[in-house]
C-alpha cells in the first residue's frame, strides 16, 4: 500500500509541474487559438536564467529564504518579459494570417530560444546546486516526501488557486474570459484586447518560469533542449483537460502525472509515452474538447 501511495506522491509532484506549464498553453490557445510551441523552451530558459541568477548573486553558498524568493521573483519577471516580447514580435503580426503561419512562427521562436540558451550557456548539461532547498525528507508511514516535493506541491497549488480566483472573481479576469469567447465583441465592449493578450502572456510565462525552476531544483541536471519534452507533455495535459479551459489544464496536468507514474510503476516505464499518447488519441476520438471541456457545436 505504501508503495502505491509513494507512486501517487511522485505522480502528483510531476503532475503539478505539468499543470503549471499546461496553464500557459491553454490560456494562449483559449484567447488566440494558437499552439504556442515556444512555451516549453521558455520553461527551459527559466531554469538556466534562475541558475545564473542564483550563482551570480549568492555565489558564496548559504541558502536563505531570501535567496530563494529573490531567484523565483527575478526569474519569473525575466521570463514574463521574454514571453511578452515573443508575442509582440512573433505572434502579433500574424493575428490575421492563416492559422498555420502562426504555428510555423511559433516553431521558429522555439528554435530561437532553444539555440539562444545553447549559445549563452553552452551545449553541455548544467547542474543546479543541491543546497538550494534543505534536503529534509519527511517519512510518513513509509511514504517519503522531500522538502522540495512539498514545496512543489504547495506552491503550485497556491498559484493555481490564485489564478482561478483571478480569472473568475476579478474584473480583469472577466475581460480575459470575454476575449477568449469573442475578440471582436470584447473589443466593441471597450476591452483592450492587446492588453489582455499581454496579461495572458505575462501570467503564462511566469507560471512556466516557476515550473522551470522547480524542474532544475528537483532534477538538478538541465539541458538546453529539455523544454521540448516538458512542453509536449504539458500540452498533452492541456488537451486532455480540455484546451482553453483553465481548471481543465490543472486537472489534465495532475491526471497525466498520476497516469505516467502508475504506468511506469506498474506496467513499464519504457512504454510510458506510448500510453500517454494513446490516452490522448482516445480522449480526442471520444471527447475532442477534452474531459472538462464543453461540447460545442461546430461553427460554420
Amino acid at each position: 500500500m505504501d508503495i502505491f501511495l509513494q507512486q501517487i506522491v511522485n505522480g502528483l509532484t510531476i503532475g503539478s509541474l505539468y499543470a503549471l506549464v499546461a496553464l500557459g498553453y491553454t490560456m494562449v490557445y483559449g484567447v488566440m487559438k494558437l499552439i504556442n510551441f515556444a512555451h516549453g523552451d521558455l520553461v527551459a530558459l527559466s531554469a538556466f536564467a534562475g541558475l545564473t541568477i542564483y550563482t551570480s548573486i549568492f555565489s558564496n553558498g548559504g541558502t536563505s529564504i531570501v535567496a530563494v524568493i529573490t531567484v523565483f521573483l527575478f526569474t519569473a519577471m525575466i521570463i514574463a518579459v521574454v514571453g511578452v516580447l515573443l508575442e509582440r514580435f512573433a505572434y502579433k503580426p500574424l493575428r490575421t494570417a492563416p492559422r498555420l503561419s502562426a504555428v510555423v512562427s511559433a516553431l521558429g521562436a522555439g528554435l530561437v530560444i532553444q539555440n539562444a540558451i545553447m549559445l549563452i550557456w553552452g551545449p553541455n548539461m548544467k547542474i543546479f546546486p543541491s543546497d538550494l532547498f534543505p534536503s529534509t525528507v519527511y517519512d510518513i508511514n513509509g511514504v517519503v516526501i522531500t522538502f522540495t516535493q512539498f514545496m512543489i506541491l504547495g506552491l503550485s497549488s497556491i498559484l493555481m488557486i490564485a489564478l482561478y480566483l483571478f480569472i473568475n472573481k476579478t474584473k480583469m479576469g472577466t475581460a480575459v474570459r470575454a476575449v477568449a469567447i469573442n475578440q471582436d465583441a470584447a473589443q466593441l465592449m471597450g476591452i483592450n484586447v492587446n492588453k489582455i493578450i499581454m496579461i495572458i502572456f505575462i501570467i503564462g510565462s511566469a507560471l512556466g518560469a516557476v515550473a522551470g525552476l522547480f524542474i532544475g531544483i528537483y532534477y538538478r541536471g538541465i539541458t538546453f533542449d529539455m523544454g521540448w519534452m516538458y512542453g509536449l507533455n504539458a500540452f498533452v495535459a492541456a488537451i486532455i483537460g480540455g484546451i482553453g479551459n483553465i481548471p481543465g489544464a490543472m486537472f489534465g496536468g495532475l491526471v497525466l502525472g498520476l497516469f505516467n507514474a502508475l504506468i511506469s510503476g506498474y506496467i513499464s516505464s519504457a512504454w510510458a509515452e506510448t500510453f500517454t499518447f494513446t490516452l490522448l488519441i482516445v480522449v480526442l476520438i471520444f471527447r475532442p474538447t477534452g474531459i472538462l471541456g464543453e461540447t460545442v457545436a461546430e461553427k460554420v
Partner: protein
Amino acid sequence: MMSRTNIIALIFLIIMGLYPLFADSAWLAIGTTFLVFSVVAFSQDIILGRAGAFHMGHAAFFGMGAYTTAILNVNFGWTILATWAPAVLIPVIVSFIVISPIIHLRGDYLLVATIGINIIFLQILENDLFGLTGGPNGIFGIDVLKVFGYEFFEQTHMYYMSFILLGITLFIMKNLDSSKFGRAMFYVNKDDVAAQSMGINIRYYKMYAFAIGAGIAGAAGSMFAVQYSAVSPEAFDVLQSIMFFTIVLVGGSASLPGVIIGTFVMFVLPEIFREFETARYLIFGLAMIIMMILRPRGIWPVKFGNIPSFLKKGKK
C-alpha cells in the same frame, strides 16, 4: 502548351540531373539527401498542402519505409530490390489503420494526434519491439542495391537512384493534380463546406491523400536507409516531422516550386552555413518568423484564385 508548373518541374529535373558533373563527393552526398528530402516534402505536401490535413507526424511514414528495408535486408536477408514493394505498402497500410479513426479530427487536434502517432512509432523503435528494430542504436550494415551482380554503392549511384525516385514522385503529383482527387481537393481548399454539400466526401479524399503520401514517404525512407547503410530512431523523431511540415509552409503549400524552395531553404542552406555552426539554427528560427510575417502563405504561394487549366474548356 506546357503549364508554368510543368516548365519549372522540367528545369528543376534538368538542373538536378546535371548536378553530379560539378559536385565533389561530399556535395554529392548533400545533393542525394536533398533529393530524398524533397520527395518526402512533396508527399507531405499532398497531405498538408493539397488535402489540407494538419499532419505533423510524417517522419513516422518516412521511418517505416526505412525500417522496412533495414529489417527485411539485415534480419531476413532480402535483397534491397525485394524490399522496395513492402517499404511502400507497409506505410500505406499502417497509415490507413492509424489515421482513419482520427481523420475526422479538425485542425490542431489532428496535428497533435499525428504528433502522438510519431512518438508512439519512435517508442516502438527504441524499445526494440519483437527484437526487430535494434533499439536506440537502430540497424547497421544495410546492403547496397545489387542487380545482376552489379553493385550500386558509389555516391553517384545513390544520387541517381534518388533522382529517379524524385522523377517518379513528380509524375505521380502531375497525374494527381489532373485526377478526380485533384479537382476534389481544389474545391475543398476553396470552400470545404460547399464542397461537402456538393457531395464530395472529404474524409475519403483526406484518407486517400494520407495513403499516397505515406507510400511515397516510405519509398524515400527505403532510399535513405540504403544511402547511409544505417537507420536509427532519432532520424525519424517529431523534430524531423516538424521540419517536413515547415518545409511545405515556408515554401508555399500545394506549390511545386514552393516545396522545392522550402526544401532548399530548410535543408541545404543550413548545410552551406556550416561555418556558423552553432548560431545557424538561431538565425534559422529567426528566418522562419520573419518569413511568415512577410509572406504568410510561403515564399512561392500557389494562387487558388486562378482557374486551373483542367477546368478551362478545350484544354487538358
